[in-house]
């Protein structure tokens, strides 16, 4: 099959699905709607798998393809697709998770009256995300980047009648847009420098050294600002936990597996740019490392099941950035993939937990689920073990790669940070696990049932979470495949035995501590928080970042607004009144002239006549 046909097979179904569901929402039953969604994403998944087979197994180099979108300065600006290994890998991740989430949502959203609207948004999102990951140029990435952003906004605000959802949606859009502006400026600067948006052209320009290194650094950092916004990195992370107001399938698809990883994808996709700008790499590494530990500590003190997972996502994305910043291209991308699977699993499982507890999200009100639902407990445990990095689950391998990359890059401080963050990760995940699944049920009355449509996707994701590590370890096939997409090879990391051992030990320590406090309750959580109340409060309030923004940005903006409002009313409005007043005075003077006195008229006529003659004469003479 032609590659173009295959790409159309990947892209078109979801777009069509979006249109069909949107236009036919009155007539379609819920089952039909879901069927359309599942079939379209199914076709997309098959298409991606074929592409993956061609690229990964048959080692074909897939061609790119372009068409002209608009002309600037007599030069065509093109759209099209590119299928480097990284693009194909992203296709697989997006279509797999999207397919499973489409299936899962049938169970989760069954009771919602805007079921079809939900599916149409999901389809639009999937289309945009697929378009994003195969973009050959920065402009196209930016366009789809914004489109996935708006889908995220729509889905976060899906329950529009809830005030929190409204606020969260707005926040998600505006905070990510702050990052997007960095991206926007970066693109504009690239165009200013090389007159093109194509990644290829930029790469060549950098290799030839036709862009100054200062400019390269600036562009790289601005691109990274975009990635910070999208991937919830500090200091623009605040929207992501709030985005949990959206339905849980959305959190799994958009806010865990795919869209929030777009920032990581962007950095990986322009990795040669960052390699040419060591300062930018530093920024990526430090922001990533800081975010990893920062979000992990907040995760410890949260009580909302989805928010814990959200902070965990922020923290894991930080790990990926840390890897990329430490020239661990493979490690970052590898972790992106494994994280997509196990975090989607965790969110979907959390959704199932919420269904069982009748949409309760506070983990303090849950407990004892182990006795009620063994399957779900097992699935959730797989996710926990994978994210914690316990061998042989996939998270172990990818996290190990990251730690190795950081170690070999020589930033020992960051390595320590990453290992401590791993401890916190283990702690908050198993705090969550033990609180929800062990102990006694705290809810009275009948517990909800998990529909079968929801269980199957979780099982698939659980399997992927277990085996996904095999693509890299022990065969190194992922890294040799990804390497083909890079112009120059990146030094691979020699394995070291003591780093994985330390990491696993630290994680086990975190798990053990969580067990002592929340599992066997040997140590009282209240006592600990009681001894350091300020620290606990600091974590519960998420380091007061939201409050900080409120006082530093929103209130001053409103203040300026009110001042300008007064200025606009009094000064500008005053000018208007002045203008109107002058006109009126002129008008009165004009009427005063027409007072009916013939002498006055005659006098004016004479004056006018004199002026006329003088001016005519003057004109003649001057000529």
């Amino acid at each position: 099959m032609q590659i173009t046909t295959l790409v159309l097979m990947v892209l078109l179904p979801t777009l069509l699905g979006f249109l069909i569901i949107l236009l036919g929402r009155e007539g379609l039953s819920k089952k039909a709607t879901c069927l359309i969604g599942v079939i379209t994403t199914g076709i997309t998944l098959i298409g991606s798998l074929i592409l993956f087979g061609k690229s990964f197994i048959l080692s074909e180099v897939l061609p790119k393809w372009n068409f002209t979108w608009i002309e600037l300065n007599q030069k065509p600006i093109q759209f099209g697709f590119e299928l480097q290994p990284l693009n194909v890998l992203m296709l697989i991740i997006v279509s797999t998770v999207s397919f499973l989430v489409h299936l899962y949502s049938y169970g989760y959203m069954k009771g919602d009256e805007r079921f079809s609207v939900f599916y149409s948004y999901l389809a639009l999102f999937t289309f945009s995300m697929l378009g994003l990951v195969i973009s050959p140029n920065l402009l196209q990435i930016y366009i789809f980047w914004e489109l996935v952003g708006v889908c995220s906004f729509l889905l976060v605000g899906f329950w529009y009648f809830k005030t929190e959802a409204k606020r969260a949606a707005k926040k998600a859009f505006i905070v990510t847009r702050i990052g997007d502006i960095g991206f926007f400026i970066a693109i504009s600067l690239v165009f200013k420098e090389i007159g093109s948006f194509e990644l290829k052209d930029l790469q060549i320009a950098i290799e030839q050294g036709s862009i100054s290194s200062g400019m390269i650094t600036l562009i790289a950092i601005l691109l990274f600002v975009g990635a910070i916004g999208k991937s919830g990195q500090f200091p623009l992370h605040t929207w992501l936990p709030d985005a949990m107001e959206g339905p849980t399938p959305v959190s799994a698809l958009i806010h865990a597996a795919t869209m929030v990883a777009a920032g990581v994808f962007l950095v990986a996709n322009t990795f040669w740019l960052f390699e040419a700008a060591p300062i930018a790499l530093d920024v990526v590494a430090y922001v990533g490392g800081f975010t990893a530990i920062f979000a992990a500590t907040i995760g410890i003190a949260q009580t909302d099941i989805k928010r814990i997972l959200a902070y965990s996502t922020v923290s894991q994305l930080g790990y990926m950035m840390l890897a990329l910043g430490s020239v661990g291209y493979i490690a970052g991308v590898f972790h992106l993939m494994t994280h997509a699977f196990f975090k989607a699993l965790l969110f979907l499982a959390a959704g199932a937990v919420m269904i069982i507890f009748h949409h309760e999200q506070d983990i303090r009100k849950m407990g004892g689920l182990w006795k009620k639902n063994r399957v779900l407990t097992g699935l959730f445990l797989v996710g926990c073990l994978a994210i914690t990095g316990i061998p042989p689950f996939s998270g172990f391998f990818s996290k190990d790669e990251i730690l190795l990359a950081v170690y070999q890059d020589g930033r020992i401080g960051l390595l320590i940070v990453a290992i401590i963050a791993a401890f916190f990760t283990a702690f908050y995940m198993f705090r969550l696990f033990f609180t929800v699944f062990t102990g006694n049920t705290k809810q009275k009355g009948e517990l909800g049932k998990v529909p079968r449509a929801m269980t199957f996707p979780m099982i698939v994701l659980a399997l992927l979470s277990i085996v996904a590590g095999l693509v890299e370890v022990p065969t190194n096939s992922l890294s040799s495949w990804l390497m083909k997409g890079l112009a120059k090879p990146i030094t691979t990391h020699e394995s070291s035995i003591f780093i994985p051992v330390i990491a696993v030990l630290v994680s086990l320590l975190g798990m053990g501590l969580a067990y002592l406090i929340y599992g066997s309750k040997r140590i009282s959580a209240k006592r600990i928080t009681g001894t350091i109340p300020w620290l606990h409060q600091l974590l519960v309030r998420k380091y007061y970042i939201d409050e900080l923004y409120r006082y530093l940005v929103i209130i001053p903006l409103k203040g300026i607004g009110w001042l300008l409002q007064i200025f606009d009313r009094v000064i500008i409005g005053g000018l208007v009144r002045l203008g109107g007043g002058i006109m009126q005075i002129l008008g009165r003077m004009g009427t005063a002239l027409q007072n009916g006195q013939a002498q006055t008229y005659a006098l004016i006529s004479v004056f006018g006549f004199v002026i006329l003659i003088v001016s005519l004469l003057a004109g003649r003479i001057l000529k």
Partner: protein
Amino acid sequence: MTALNQWLPTLITFSPLLGIIILLFIPREKERVHRSIGILATLPPLVLSVWMYNSFNQKLVGFQMKQSFDWIRLFDDAKISYSMGVDGISMPLTLLTCVISTLAVIASLYIRRRTKQYYMLFLLLQTGMLGVFLSSTFFLFFIFFEITLVAAFFLIGIWGYLEKERAANLFLIYNGIGSAFMLIAMIGLFLSTKTWEYHDMQERLVMWLNLAEQPVLLWVIFICLFIAFAIKLPIFPFHSWMLRTHVEAPTPVVMVHSGILLKMGAYGLMRFGVGMFPDYMKEMTWILIALGLINIIYGAILAFVQKELKRVLAYSSVSHMGIILLGIASLNQIGLKGALFQAISHGLISALLFYIVGSLYERTKTTELAMLGGLARRMPILSGLLLVAGLALLGLPGLSGFISEFLAFLGLFQVQPIFAAVGTIGLILAAAYTLRAVLKTTFGPMRESFQGLRDIRLNESIPMLILVGLITLIGVYPKIVDDSIQLTLYQMVLRIGG
């Protein structure tokens, strides 16, 4: 065909008058007939302008389909000629005018008083607007420009909301002052070039401008022109008349006003500013950038604190006109393209938004943000359209607002990256004020009193859907506009040199 094509600009401009003539013979109380005739009368210019778009030769420099003959003899060899034609700048604006006029007439269904006069004035307004874009002499331009003032004045003053008289007054005073400046400039230009034709004016001005010592008169003319169009666009601090007009004028008039009339300011700045005084524009770059940034940020911040929906939109117009200014200030092809795209795109988007708000008002009887909320529950379609329009306004890719803002900023980035970067703050603020207004209206819990509201009917939603379609079309496939403006802008930039 060519013989007929020559007549196209004239035919398009005057074809709405046919409707006025027919309306003259219709009795006053036959309101439905007035409405039908009003709608029908806007169709010939629409069809003809689409035809014009099709027969427009994208490879031809300067005005085409030009028709001119002597009209008035002044003295010696100086005469005023009647001359109309179309080039790459006026082409898309003419189409825009026809589309928005037709949709605005369809949207006039809430007008129930003195309908005969209303539709007559409206058609007169359309003739004026089309004439402004299709004239190829300054004299005709001025006449048509004045026709739009008179027609719009009455339309605002008679059919507006509560403080309509005051709004109409302010409209007239400000635009009158603008016209006075334009008149001075026009006469000055005529005296120094002895011609009214744009093309000849341009040629002769080049001679003047190449002189080592340029007469002060030229600067005076230029400043007068600039002020005239600055008031129209409007540029800070001349914006307050426009706010009132947007709040008080009836919905269809606001659609036309913010959709087209304001764009005459942008058109004027490009046609006369960049087209005839490229060197002066270049010397003014800093002022243009400063004014553009002020417009963008001042408008955006004020839009953010408004308590009433129409005022939010009005201030957002101020902000968006700033983007046009920035595009023009870049004085390169990309920036100018952005400015022109922004004129077209914002024309469509603001027409859509004001229409939506108009139909909202018909139901809720209020546009105070504090009184609104949760309307998506009772009016999912209208709310959905409002959301789409809002997303277009804040520059979402795939919709026309993105391509125009992107190009305008990209143009400025080529020459003044730092100031362009400052301007992008406006894009963040745009997201903030648009979402604030849209979400306050449609999201959140709904008020009890809105329980009985009905969603829009199909005939109301048709203009909205058409506008959404056009906005999406330009956003997805900008070449549809780009192809016809390409060459004209290229020529314009060549004149700037450097």
